[in-house]
């Protein structure tokens, strides 16, 4: 029952992200647009390119969706609304999202097109940049909660949200999340102006619908993760817990979608060097500061 409810909420969230994304990009707020787009995609031809790596081509989009859904299973929307409460919850999110890379590599290689293939490999380069910046801030969050249980992490922020307790970690995690969800300015793998759509370019019809749904669910999952790790999850005055979860997730999503609009795409080489030369030292400092805080002011 909970599973079904969470899945429904995720789909609703993904739908909302689609509306929001279109609103931000073309200034038109049309509630029905994603519905039309989905039905139209399902009604259109869906073809397989001439010489595909068939298994990779078919599995890629599905795996992207599965990976995002899997990560969502350990995210508590209210104290009770969580699919499975794993003792390693916080790490599980990270583990599940690694398959985003596999999915994009498969989807890039599968159709046998140059644009898609370059897009897929670009994401591998991106993973090398952002991966540590997902794990290391989570480490600091778990240190404060003294637990990897995602519900425990929310409870640990009762007095003070992590965004204030460890702002450095928040910024790093937020940026790394955007890179993981390949949102602009980290959208090198599906860049329109550089790769004519890249990984997405050869997908059509129902397969494209699955790919896009996977991306939307990924965004909403990462926004939810940000909300429970740094914004105190369901906590807040006056409103019921589910409402607070919804508000926080929407605010994070909107911020993620808006940010990329006001800057050009990042260069791959710069992303790598900034992540490793700046991001990782900062993440270590963050762990150190949180460690001291946890020890001195328990």
């Amino acid at each position, binding site marked *: 029952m909970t599973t079904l409810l969470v899945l429904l909420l995720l789909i609703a969230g993904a739908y909302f992200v689609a509306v929001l994304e279109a609103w931000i990009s073309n200034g038109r707020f049309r509630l029905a647009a994603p519905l039309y787009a989905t039905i139209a995609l399902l009604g259109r031809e869906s073809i397989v390119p*001439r010489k595909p790596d068939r298994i990779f081509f078919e599995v890629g989009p599905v795996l992207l969706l599965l990976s995002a859904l899997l990560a969502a299973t350990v995210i508590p929307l209210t104290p009770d609304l969580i699919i499975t409460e794993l003792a390693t919850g916080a790490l599980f999110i990270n583990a599940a999202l690694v398959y985003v890379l596999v999915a994009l590599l498969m989807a890039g290689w599968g159709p046998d097109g140059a644009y898609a293939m370059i897009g897929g490999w670009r994401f591998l380069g991106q993973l090398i940049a952002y991966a540590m910046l997902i794990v290391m801030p989570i480490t600091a969050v778990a240190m404060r909660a003294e637990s990897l249980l995602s519900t425990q992490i929310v409870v640990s922020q009762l007095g003070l949200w992590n965004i204030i307790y460890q702002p450095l970690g928040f910024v790093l995690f937020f940026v790394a999340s955007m890179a993981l969800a390949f949102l602009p300015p980290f959208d090198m793998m599906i860049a329109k102006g550089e790769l004519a759509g890249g990984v997405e370019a050869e997908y059509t019809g129902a397969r494209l619908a699955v790919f896009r749904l996977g991306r939307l669910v990924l965004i909403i999952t990462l926004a939810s993760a940000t909300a429970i790790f740094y914004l105190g999850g369901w906590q807040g005055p006056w409103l019921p817990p589910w409402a607070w979860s919804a508000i926080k997730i929407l605010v994070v999503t909107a911020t993620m979608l808006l940010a990329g609009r006001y*800057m050009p795409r990042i260069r791959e080489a710069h992303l790598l060097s900034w992540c490793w030369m700046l991001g990782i030292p900062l993440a270590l400092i963050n762990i150190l500061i949180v460690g001291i805080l946890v020890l001195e002011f328990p």
Partner: protein
Amino acid sequence: MIAGARLATLSGLRRLVALSMAQDLGVYLIPGPEIAGVYGLDIEATGMHIVASPRHASVLLVVGKISPALCEAAAVVYAQMMRPRVLFGIGTTELSPLPEADILADVSQQGLMEGVRRLRIALAEGAFNPAVSDFDAPMLQTRIEYTCSMHPEIIQDEPGSCPKCGMNLIPRDAQARMMHAHTEHPKMEGVDYSGMDREATVEYTCPMHPEVIQNEPGSCPKCGMTLEPRETQNTHHDHAGMSHGDMGHNDMAFMSMIDVTMDLPRSSDGLPMDWIDVPFGPFFPGLPGGLLLTLTLDGDTVAGSRAGTMTGNEPLLLQSAMDINKFTERLAKLEPLAPVCYQVLACLAIENAGGLDIDTEIARARAIAVERERIVSHLGWLALFGRQTGFDWLLRRATSLQQDFLHADIKQIVALKAAILDLSGRLQHTPLLKSRTTGIGRLGADTDKILFGPVARASGINNDVRNNDKIYGDLGFTPAGGKDGDVRARLQLRVDEIGHSLALIEKAGITIDSAMSACHVFATNNIDEASGDGEAVIETPRGLARLQLGLENGRVKTVQLATPSTFHLGLIEKLTAQQELGDALVTVGSLDLSPWEIRL
């Protein structure tokens, strides 16, 4: 009914699907959004959205007349689109080998809107049709051609043996070399190293200092060790022929990466990879439509490049001598991205040939028309830059400003000054913009002599012909300048020039109507009897264009045109070499090439 309908009857649930399709229109633009921009068409205002891949489009929108070569390329794009697909022609009907357009409209926003309305109805009613026939065109057939693995220049339609070495020719897909979206993985076939072939020779290198390489034996200048001989690159790396020397891919149980990549040519990053040729264009979303750029990629590093245009270089003069009025119109039509400049250029050259003095008022009015076009053109470039780099805000802002300027009179232009200042200020403080553009595609003032226009001025070369123009001098013209010569400098320079042109227009105080009409009249009426040779230059938004022509009894007899894009095209190969793909594309974009004015 639409020709690209899906083969099925329209019934039950499909009605609903067809209605949804009519609401969700992804459009792929031929030749490109920048042409729609200069024609004053606002595509997104119709509710359609521009997509980057033909696979995601349901509407193919052809704007204006295009060359036969572009029509053929458009036919391939059309074939790549998913059914149901609609062909929408604006201001053109000659689309063969494409099928007849499903919807036709005039070149105007009203025509576009009306066309989209009819398009929605046609799609809702005819998305599924049991009586539709398949689209087929000669260039869509897979053609097998035969080539020699040792002599790639040998290509023939039938199997046989190589006239040079007698080897059996091997088959390959002729189309794969040419068409977008059909590029092959290196693991499979079709990798074309023909540009990279080298003779097998022996060179000498030091075992301790691999950077020391010479053609003759000797000792290392660094450590004095005796140099060791080694064989350089294999003659031909043609995977299609599986001529991978003695290492057969299939019968080896174990392959070390070193063995596999040993013979491959290397790029500057030292990582040996399979090289692939990837076409960008003629309708690539991040480049001007009509420009054909083929990059040889080594991973994501550019190892080589070829650039050209597919807009069709029609001769400037048709068979016989041409009426001067017709000639100016023709020249203007040849370059849709800067028609006013070319019209003025034609007028100037004709007047020069006829030995006429140009009235100051007219010259001044023409200058204003040219300056407004410069603003429109630079804004169009900014929009393209935004599209290419995913800078969504800039794309939308520049596109809408371009539309504002396109038909603005002097009052409106002056009123837009604040918006331009705001745009310029924003670009100063945009995060990532500086790191994205600085140091890329650098052109030095000393090394490259054949630079024109903004590209030259951004490198600190001041060869702007407006400097010596008295009209401009009277208006207080100061040329914009830069010195770094990289993409950043070119971006900044174009933004500065928008401001300068605006100031010129404000100062001149001539109404746009009279400015535009000045581009159509000649200085005097008795030019009809004039004969002689003449020459004129003009500073177009892309740089100096030079027109030489011969008049005979008021008719244009001979003509010769030199354009900046023609020269700048030659810079691409050097500029993109060994750059990362994204940087290479930004570099090519920053040259602001107009495929329409390239004359090879």
